[in-house]
């Protein structure tokens, strides 16, 4: 949908302006652009770092809850005494801490900063955003503590007690308004693909959340309409909130780091509109075989299969942009995390489309296979891209480089190896769990006994990922505390690249 086609070269030219390696740009332009970026970053610093640090805090809380829950699944006597730490509560609290805590706050961080950067506009009234951040954090704290102390709702993704909901609505309301306000004050006439995704996401999520809370808690719908609303929300919170902003972030980071424009403007458009149209329809495959009208699940299967279009479009676009620059993965932490996430996006989406098929679902549904898939999506794809963004963004906001490239390396390998073990172990275990569940001659105890080693492997993966997060949090705190060297010249690399990489 090229709205104002002023020549096919335009988008590419604009994107190129963003990068600082183009030879046509004069030294004076370069200095002016750097000063403008510095002013934008200065306006963002407070609120964006507030969102970022609370995201990191909830990541640690969520990781601890994850490990506790994971251990309990193979060693049921672990911390079995207190009601507060029973599996079901820890499981719900984990999802709130990482879903609404870490991932949502990182999404907000990404949306605010990139919107300012790409609109070439300073953040307005930054202080109000502290109120928004405070409100959202209060919501997450109420959610996590409320669940732990027995107010969990057992509505997947919406387990937060009802008194937390207004804080989320207020928090996201302000963020959405601010993103739109920054966009409307933009100085850059070209609207880059990342901005489309961010604009759509900050509009979709408040609507999605409000409708879900309204129809499940405030005016509860009857019977199975509730799980229908539940999975429309549960799937779209990933598809229309995390995914667009994470994909948009990859669209920002990759060209920025390698200093090349995006391969194809038209593939970007295809990817964006196909995602908008099809992802929103995909949620009902979570209820395949359940007591809902068959046409609903079928509609979602169609939506899920059509997801191949945006995924392939984005995959080709990112790949072609990277082509010839893969050696940069050796040096740039931001790029390595982002590219890992982008690859996981292609993989997890293709897998998800196939998983929505009824024949496949008959085995994979109700098993740990789905858990593996969910974590590949929200961690392997979304979290990894946001780690990449943080490694790129934070030094620009604080004016300090990362204190230790060794810790970044530790973080990367713990996260990458951790999620790989996680995914492989639970995919294999979950698949056979599904096959055995479908065979009435296999007693239930045999299935549980079979799955235990895989659940143990998941704990190992979880511990690895948590170690990575500790390294990440340590780097983050050190950076805020001013331990890194002052920013001048190049960024923190894994290894110093050759002079002209």
């Amino acid at each position, binding site marked *: 949908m090229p709205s104002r086609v002023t020549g096919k070269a335009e988008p590419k030219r604009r994107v190129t302006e963003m990068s600082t390696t183009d030879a046509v740009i004069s030294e004076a332009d370069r200095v002016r652009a750097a000063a403008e970026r510095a002013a934008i970053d200065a306006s963002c610093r407070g609120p964006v770092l507030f969102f970022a640090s609370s995201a990191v805090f909830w990541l640690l809380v969520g990781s601890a809850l994850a490990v506790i829950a994971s251990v309990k699944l193979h060693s049921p006597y672990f911390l079995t005494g207190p009601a507060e730490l029973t599996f079901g509560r820890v499981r*719900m609290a984990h999802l709130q801490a990482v879903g609404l805590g870490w991932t949502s706050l990182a999404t907000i961080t990404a949306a605010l900063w990139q919107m300012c950067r790409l609109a070439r506009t300073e953040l307005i009234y930054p202080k109000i955003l502290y109120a928004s951040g405070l409100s959202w954090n209060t919501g997450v704290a109420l959610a996590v503590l409320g669940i732990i102390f027995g107010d969990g709702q057992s509505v997947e993704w919406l387990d937060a007690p009802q008194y937390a909901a207004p804080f989320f609505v207020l928090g996201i309301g302000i963020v959405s308004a601010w993103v739109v306000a920054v966009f409307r004050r933009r100085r850059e006439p070209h609207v880059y693909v990342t901005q489309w995704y961010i604009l759509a996401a900050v*509009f979709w999520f408040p609507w999605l959340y409000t409708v879900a809370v309204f129809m499940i808690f405030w005016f509860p719908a009857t019977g*199975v309409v509730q799980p229908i609303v539940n999975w429309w929300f549960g799937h779209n919170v990933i598809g229309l909130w995390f995914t667009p902003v994470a994909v948009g972030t990859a669209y920002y980071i990759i060209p920025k780091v390698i200093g090349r424009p995006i391969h194809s403007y038209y593939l970007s458009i295809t990817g964006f509109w196909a995602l908008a149209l099809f992802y929103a329809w995909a949620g009902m495959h979570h209820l395949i075989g359940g007591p809902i009208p068959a046409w609903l699940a079928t509609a979602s299967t169609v939506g899920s299969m059509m997801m191949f279009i945006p995924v392939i479009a984005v995959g080709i676009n990112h790949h072609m942009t990277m082509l010839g620059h893969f050696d940069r993965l050796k040096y740039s932490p931001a790029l390595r995390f982002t590219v890992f996430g982008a690859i996981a996006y292609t993989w997890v989406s293709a897998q998800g489309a196939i998983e929505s098929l009824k024949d496949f679902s008959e085995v994979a549904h109700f098993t740990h296979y789905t858990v593996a898939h969910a974590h590949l999506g929200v961690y392997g794809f979304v979290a990894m891209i946001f780690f990449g963004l943080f490694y790129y963004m934070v030094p620009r906001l604080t004016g300090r480089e990362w204190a230790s490239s060794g810790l970044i390396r530790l973080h990367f390998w713990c996260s990458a190896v951790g999620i790989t073990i996680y995914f492989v172990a639970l995919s294999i275990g979950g698949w056979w769990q599904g096959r055995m569940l479908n065979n009435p001659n296999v007693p239930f105890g045999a299935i549980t006994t079979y799955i235990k080693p895989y659940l143990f492997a998941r704990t190992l993966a979880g511990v690895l990922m948590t170690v990575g997060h500790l390294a990440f949090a340590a780097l983050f705190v050190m950076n805020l505390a001013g331990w890194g060297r002052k920013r001048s010249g190049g960024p923190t690399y894994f290894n110093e690249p050759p002079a002209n990489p």
Partner: protein
Amino acid sequence: MDRGMVIFLGSLLTFSSSWLGLILFPFWQLNNEQPYQKDATEVPYPQPLQGLALAGRKVYQANGCMYCHSQQVRSEKFGNWWENGLEKTGADIKRGWGLRRNVSRDYIYDNPTMLGTMRTGPDLANVGSRYTEAWQHAHTFNPRVFNDWSIMPSFAFLYRKERVTGERSDKALTLGREWTVDPGYRWRPTPDQWDAILAERGEAIKAQFLARPENAAATGLDLTSPEGKRQLLEFWLTTEEEGYQIVPTDEAEALVAYLLSLRKAEVPLPEAKE
């Protein structure tokens, strides 16, 4: 795409389409479903939960039971697996999880509707017809009482261990001390502790052991041999702890009442015919 309005209208339209199709249509189709009554003499099905069972649903909800237990029996045509080239389906019903598949009408009084998405444990849609109240209490207290392999949490925190004053409560769980000495865990004395116990009241325990008709022939039980000690320990662990009892709290009673009320695949419904 340099205009915000294009992006806004486009995302509004695409999103509205899914809201209309996936939320509003099912809402119209299903939100006013009524209970089924074959003729005027029969009690309509389903019935809303009341009293203790209603309170129990809150306990089920607060402790996240549905993250391991679904509540939906799937069709006898669902679930592909092959053996010797023959396709076999309908494992849910064959496993005895329900007499028929569940349909939307089974859930009209559920709030929240906890269909579940995971079967780390078995389906509970119809669990009320499978187990007794006593079984449910002992199993909730510590599932490994019945199944060594179980990874379900112990919900001993929903039970109270108290001194018996006068008569034992008729609600008290009948469990050996193996399970009740340290609620939530499986208890065994260390060899030294066991020796101390034997020294103190070994003869009394032995007398108790021999009083059981099935042990009458074992009069030669030697309290000094390792084998004799082991045999007596196994027996002693299954006996109830003197002076103490485990009673369910209100929450545990409510939870079990809820579990016993789960009979979603018993009453035939015309639309549930395959």
